[in-house]
């Protein structure tokens, strides 16, 4: 790779050991993908902020000790816990201590304590075409696809390197020529009526990720009035079942105002389809606990938006969560402030919904909670639930989740794709 004079000084260690290490890692990645130079990014979203394993803590603490400082505005993904309500979340002392150390290391390096996996719904939202370096698979796919900002799928550790340098190697989805769709997916027989059930979006996302693998994909047949939160759910599921960094939805996402636009006038390498039968099958594959009664209902994967909270409170207001069920809602500190100010938080608490910030239902302190089955409306959460928590899982719409939690009896509605 060609380095600028300043980069050469960093490589020689003249700017300290932290940027030197960050640059050598970045250059090795860049050379591997054929990058010829480094390029500036305007902001970074760090996924590595969650304490999960000691390697992540050792890496962050080392860089902080070496005097590492963020070079561009940097937001943080989730924590392993709710850093404020850790008692109610029953966080064991060791996890609390290590999450606090993680917090300290990142704040010392100058990161912003956003603590959210939905950084595109408040805070430092990038604009169309902006060059950024984001971690967190759902956020990467959302930023690239729905906003049209440009980032590669940056993994943990590389995201910190990008932040300390304010630069990344120039390759992949940063370059317009790599953003065209290679795979085209038609929705075949998926009627307008089916889109009235929000649960279709995470299921479609899950299927699109499986079909697209690591290629840029275009999907045709999604209604133009699809809501942002539906795209969020789609994006999160697609980026869990595939290596999806960028998807186009024809007529919806900014780089796909027409099919031709996202194909850049070329033919797709592959044309595939999704049928109602496949949607039903995806729902069954995700619900490994079938119809077992959940003792945990968890929503907010990715973190709930304010609009999603208004929907939740509409469904729960004046009702009580059944004592046999624990109901968790996860969100960011920003949205938490909004729902507190307008009374939603109190209404939810009165119904028995526990609202947490910072954390993630896939990372909860399982040693102090004794659940067997989780129900969720998130395709991403359902996909990873067993491997991350050991719990059985039932996927359902938000309405199904709330009805189940209130009745204390499993409720799965009858969405139109089940008729196939």
């Amino acid at each position: 790779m060609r380095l600028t004079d300043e980069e050469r000084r960093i490589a020689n260690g003249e700017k300290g050991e932290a940027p030197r290490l960050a640059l050598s890692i970045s250059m090795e990645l860049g050379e591997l993908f054929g990058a010829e130079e480094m390029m500036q990014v305007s902001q970074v979203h760090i996924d590595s902020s969650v304490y999960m394993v000691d390697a992540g803590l050792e890496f962050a603490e080392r860089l902080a000790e070496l005097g590492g400082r963020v070079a561009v505005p940097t937001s943080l993904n989730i924590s392993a816990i709710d850093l404020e309500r850790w008692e109610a979340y029953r966080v064991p002392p060791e996890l609390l201590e290590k999450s606090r150390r993680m917090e300290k290391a990142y704040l010392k390096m100058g990161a912003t304590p956003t603590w959210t996996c939905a950084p595109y719904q408040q805070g430092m939202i990038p604009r169309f075409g902006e060059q950024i370096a984001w971690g967190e698979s759902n956020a990467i796919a959302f930023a690239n696809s729905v906003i049209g900002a440009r980032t590669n799928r940056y993994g943990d550790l590389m995201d910190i390197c990008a932040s300390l340098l304010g630069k990344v190697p120039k390759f992949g989805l940063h370059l317009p020529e790599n953003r065209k769709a290679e795979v085209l997916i038609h929705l075949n027989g998926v009627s307008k009526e089916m889109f009235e059930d929000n649960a279709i979006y995470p299921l479609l996302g899950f299927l699109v990720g499986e079909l697209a693998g690591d290629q840029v994909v275009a999907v045709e047949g999604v209604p133009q009035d699809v809501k942002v939160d539906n795209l969020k759910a789609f994006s999160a599921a697609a980026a869990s079942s595939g290596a999806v960094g960028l998807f186009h939805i024809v007529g919806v996402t900014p780089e796909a105002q027409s099919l031709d636009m996202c194909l850049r006038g070329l033919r797709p390498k592959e044309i595939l389809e999704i049928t109602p039968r496949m949607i039903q099958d995806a729902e069954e594959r995700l619900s490994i606990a079938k119809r077992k009664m959940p003792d945990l209902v968890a929503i907010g994967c990715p973190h709930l938006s304010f609009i999603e909270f208004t929907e939740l409170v509409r469904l729960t207001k004046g009702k009580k969560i059944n004592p046999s069920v624990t109901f968790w809602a996860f969100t960011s500190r920003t949205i938490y402030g909004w729902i507190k100010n307008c009374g939603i938080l109190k209404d939810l608490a009165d119904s028995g919904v526990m609202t947490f910030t910072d954390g993630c239902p896939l990372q909860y302190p399982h040693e102090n909670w004794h659940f067997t089955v989780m129900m969720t409306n998130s395709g991403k959460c359902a996909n990873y639930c067993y491997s991350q928590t050991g719990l059985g899982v039932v996927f359902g719409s938000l309405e199904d989740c709330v009805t189940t939690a209130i009745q204390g009896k499993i409720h799965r509605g009858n969405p139109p794709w089940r008729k196939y």
Partner: protein
Amino acid sequence: MEKILRGCCVVPGTCEGEVIATSQAISFWGGVNPLTGCINDPRHELFDQCISGKVLVFPFGKGSSTTSLIILELARVNKAPAAIINMRSEPILATGPIVSKHFYGKEIPVVTLEEEAFKMLKTGQNVAVNAQEGLVRIRDKL
């Protein structure tokens, strides 16, 4: 008779080991238990099998951006695969072995192969990997 497969170096290093192969993508976070090195995604065909010390063959990565951290942790606790062989290694996947080399001085060689060569690798084969040269030698008699 030895069979030599030629591909590209992703992360340098050499090793010899037993192949564990799958045609399905892997997300290390939500797919591999970082304490044991075993596949814990119940929908994966390698579910419950251990990848530690093996030459792990899968087409490409998928899913979580925490994959790189899980690979680093597997290296830290000496439960990492001996080598990784892909058709395509995306940035998230490559980051784990790269950081592992720079931060812990531990090698996890990574090689990519074209589809035809990739498909010649089968579970149970004994192979020697020389990532710098992009070479994978199948030791077993054919």
